[in-house]
Structure formats: structure tokens, C-alpha cells
């Protein structure tokens, strides 16, 4: 390390925790992340770039590798290959620097059930190197911010799921992190608690921190994130703003039910990769549509010009499965081309 680099390192070291990192304007930068557990490849080369102060959502089904990415970026797990920098620091070499600048809220509440809310926060504050008085003050401030002041005196074991999640999030903020990782923040919450949590996350985003969240819900990513990456089977298959992704994935699906198996085969053959949904028992295949009368009419005429292959149709809201099918299908096409 030459003198210049050392000086930069030193500046970064003494910089206050909530100051933006020196450098690229990227809070998270990952390239070629690969991870296998035994023989199972969980990540097959993931690249990510998350600008400072933005909200980034990693959208994917169970088992896509979302949690593994979060664990690698938050220094808890080492990638087999690839590089990642968070808040300007390498997640392996400078993991201690990274840890001072991030927080992680996982799928399981990281709280002590038999401690009160306030005690949990004070403990996290002390572990984040706050002096006793400051830790108490910070705990009280966070309880108020998260609407938990009254509950703060009660043991966490008595909390509802939504309160627990809010306290967990509050606990992750004691050290004033500049990058916040939220792994499936709303999983298991009822709709009302989810709305409340979304408002909290929006408030955090407005305060200028970088938020990296994972979710299985298109709606959640759409509502919260500036940019979304879609992860399927350990690869990013699409990335962009919600609007960009929606343009690639129709929001509706046209289900076509055929009178016979032969008709279904003919329709499927004609549509090829455009089929985003299959239900062979009901002799049904689905294609993407915007749901407008004009497009539905055009699609029916195009697929079944002789009016004998399709017995019935229905327009449905696309599910996340359709999105993945469409995106992974497109990804395959690109790969073939």
C-alpha cells in the first residue's frame, strides 16, 4: 500500500460513521459473486451496483439466493469468488470497517425475548460503542420514532409480529448505519403491519441512507425501490426501475382454454416462448397482455384465426411467477442469440 492509499484509508477510518464514503458514489458494488453450499451452486456470478442514498430491491422467489447475497454484502458469509465493496470498503478485507457502516435486519428477529424493548436497544447501543447515557438517549429516541415508547417498557416476548419487526429495525439503526440491509422485511406480517413498515422504510429512505432490501413481492419492490434487480436461480435476470421492468413484463395474463388436447398443442406450438403460464389439466395456456380490449381481440385473432382452437378466455393479473417466467424466458433467448 503506497502512502497515498494509506492516507485515503486513514481519512476513511476517521470519517464519522454516517458520512458518505469517499469514492465512487456507489454504496454497494459487487461483481461476479459466486457461492456454493456443498455441491449446490446458490449464486452463479452476480453483479450489482447500488448508488448512494437509493433504495434497491432484490426481487426473487424462495431459494433464488437473496439471503446469500445479503449475507455476503453484510460480511457474514464469504463468497467463493467475486468482489464486493459496501460503503467504499471491501467486505472481506475491510469487514470491520464495513460493519461500522451497515446494519442488517434478517428474517428472524434479532432480539432478546425476555429483555424489554428499551433494554434491547440500549444493549445494541452499547455494542455500537455508544457511551451509557448516549445509548439510553438513542434508545428513547428510536422508540419514539418507531411508535414504541409505551411498549419499550415491556418484554419483547409480549410484542405482536409488527411491533417486533419495527423494534428489530430500530435496533439495527442504533449505530446510525449508512447502508441498511433488510432481508424480506415484510414476510409474515399482516397487511396493516406491512403498510406501517413500508411507511417506516420510506421515512428511512427520505433520511438519505442507502437501503438494500430483498422481497418476494413485486408490489413491495414497486412501492419502495428506486431500482429493482430480479434474481432467479442465483443470477440477476433483469435490472431496472419498476417502470422499466413493467414494460418488459406485462401486468396481465390472457388465459386461453382449448376444447381439446390437440388444440392446446397447436396453440402452444404457435406461441412457443410466449407462453407464460400452463395448466395442462384445464387445457389452458397463458400469454402476457396489457388487458386492453384491443390487444385481447388482436391476440385471439392472431392465435386462432379460424375460431376453432380457443373455447374460452380469461384476463388475470400476472403473478410473480409469470414475471419470473417471462424474464427468465427472455434471459434464455438473449443467451441463445
Amino acid at each position, binding site marked *: 500500500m503506497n502512502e497515498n492509499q494509506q492516507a485515503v484509508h486513514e481519512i476513511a477510518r476517521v470519517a464519522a460513521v454516517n458520512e458518505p464514503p469517499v469514492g465512487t458514489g456507489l454504496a454497494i458494488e459487487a461483481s461476479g459473486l459466486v457461492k456454493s453450499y456443498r455441491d449446490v451452486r446458490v449464486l452463479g456470478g452476480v453483479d450489482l451496483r447500488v448508488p448512494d442514498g437509493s433504495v434497491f430491491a432484490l426481487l426473487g422467489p424462495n431459494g433464488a439466493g437473496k439471503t446469500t447475497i445479503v449475507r455476503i454484502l453484510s460480511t457474514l458469509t464469504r463468497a467463493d469468488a467475486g468482489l464486493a465493496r459496501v460503503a467504499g470498503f471491501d467486505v472481506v478485507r475491510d469487514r470491520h470497517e464495513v*460493519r461500522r457502516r451497515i446494519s442488517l435486519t434478517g428474517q428472524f428477529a*434479532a*432480539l432478546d425475548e425476555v*429483555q424489554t424493548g428499551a433494554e434491547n436497544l440500549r444493549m445494541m447501543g452499547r455494542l*455500537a460503542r455508544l457511551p451509557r447515557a448516549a445509548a439510553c438517549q438513542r434508545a428513547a429516541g428510536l422508540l419514539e420514532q418507531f411508535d414504541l415508547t409505551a411498549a419499550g417498557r415491556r418484554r419483547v416476548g409480549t410484542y405482536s409480529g409488527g411491533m417486533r419487526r419495527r423494534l428489530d429495525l430500530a435496533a439495527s439503526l442504533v449505530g446510525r448505519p449508512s447502508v441498511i440491509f433488510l432481508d424480506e422485511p415484510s414476510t409474515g406480517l399482516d397487511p396493516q403491519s406491512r403498510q406501517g413498515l413500508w411507511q417506516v422504510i420510506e421515512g428511512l429512505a427520505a433520511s438519505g441512507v442507502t437501503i438494500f432490501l430483498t422481497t418476494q413481492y413485486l408490489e413491495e419492490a414497486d412501492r419502495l425501490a428506486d431500482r429493482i434487480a430480479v434474481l432467479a436461480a442465483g443470477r440477476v435476470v433483469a435490472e431496472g426501475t419498476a417502470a422499466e421492468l413493467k414494460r418488459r413484463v406485462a401486468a396481465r395474463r390472457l388465459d386461453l382454454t382449448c376444447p381439446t388436447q390437440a388444440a392446446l398443442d397447436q396453440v402452444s406450438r404457435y406461441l412457443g416462448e410466449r407462453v407464460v403460464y400452463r395448466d395442462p389439466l384445464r387445457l389452458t395456456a397463458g400469454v402476457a397482455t396489457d388487458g386492453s380490449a384491443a390487444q385481447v381481440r388482436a391476440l385471439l385473432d392472431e392465435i386462432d384465426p379460424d375460431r376453432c382452437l380457443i373455447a374460452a378466455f380469461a384476463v388475470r393479473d400476472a403473478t410473480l411467477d409469470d414475471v419470473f417466467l417471462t424474464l427468465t424466458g427472455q434471459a434464455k433467448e438473449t443467451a441463445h442469440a
Partner: protein
Amino acid sequence: MPDSLIMAGRSLRLSVRSPEALLTALLLPVMLMVVFVYLFGGAVDIGTSYVSYVVPGVLLLCAVTGASTTAVTVCQDMAGGIIDRFRSLDVPGVALLAGHVIASLLRNVVSTVLVGAVAFAIGFRPHASVAGFAAAFGVLLLFVAAVSWLAAAFGLLVSAPEAANSAMFFLMFFSYASSAFVPVRTMPWWLRGFARHQPATPVTETIRGLLLRQPGGLPLGTALLWCVGLLVVSVAVSALLFRRRTA
């Protein structure tokens, strides 16, 4: 304040907040002492009052039951989400474990005082000087630290808290197959070799010798060597296990 002390404060609070577990850990040795003195003691002829003989052994049982709490709490921490939060706050694994061990030491001070008080009430009369008491207490605490850290390593090794609790039975076996409750010479010949050459015997005999001011040499050196050795190995093994569990 170092992380280990913050973690010790947390562990103590968790202990106090689980009164059932705490009461079991505190009362079990007292009950066992009463059982030994009044049920088995009459059948044991060791030449002196059995309660005086058995108190050091009961203190070892305290250490063992206390240590099993350590195994369970370490195991629970590793199984839950909180370990990730601690790690992302850059709390070293050794500080987390040290916190559990320090809490175990403090719990043991309480149970030792309790056992001592009940023992005194049923006829235990130590003859030690202040220095002798201090030395006996020191040896006991070193033993508690060693078995607690061993239990912490066990807690890292197993995946379920129920399994962690079985640490107590392994450790209890060592207390029973020693001179803690009956003289080794009364055991079958094949057990004597084991009983003489395992940590519980020199530790018990050192504490007993110090408390009762017995004539003759104490196996103090052997006791200290066992405890320090066990402690060093347990710290090293648990550091390795922690790294493996969190890889």
C-alpha cells in the same frame, strides 16, 4: 466497556428473567446435597462427618449445572437471529462466549453461597483460615470458568438447546466418578484409575483440604493444571467452532 462485559450483563439479565431455569440451577445442588447427606451419607463410612466430606463435591455439581445453562444459552444464541446482529455489530465471537462464561461465574457465586449456607445449617463446619477460604474459592471459580467454557464449546457443537442441556449429564458423570462423593478406594478397581486421573478428583480434594485444613499435601498443582489446561483447550476449540458455525 468491553463487549464481553456488555454481553455478561445481557446473559445475567437473561438468567434472572428465566426464573425456572435459574431456580433449578440454584436448587438442584442443594437438593442433591440433602439427598447425599441424609439418604446415602449414612451408608458411607469415611471416618469424619459426611456433610463436611461432601460439600466440595456439591460445589462441583453447582459448577456443572451452572455450566449446562451456559451450553443451552450459547446454543440458543447461535440458533436465533441475534447472532447475525451481534456479528454485524462487529462483536467478536469470543466476547459473546466470555459474556456467557462471566455470567456463569456470577451465578455460581450465588449458588456457592446458597450451598454453603444450607451446608452450615446441616452441620458443615469448615476450619479454614481466611486465606484458605479465598484459595478454595479461587480454585472453585477457576474450575467453573473451565467447565463453563467447555460447555460453551459444547453449545456451539450441537444444534438444539435440548441436546446442549445433555452437557450436564456428561459433566455430572465426571463429578460422580471422582472422590467428590465417595472415596476412590471404595470404587471397583477398573474405575479407580479413571477417577484419580480426571479433573474432578484433584479439584475436589484441593477444595476439601483447604476448607477442612486437612493434614498432608494438597493436589493443588494438579488441580490448577487441569483447570488451566481445560480452559485453554476450551477457548481454542470454541474459537474454532465459532468460526466454523459462522462461516
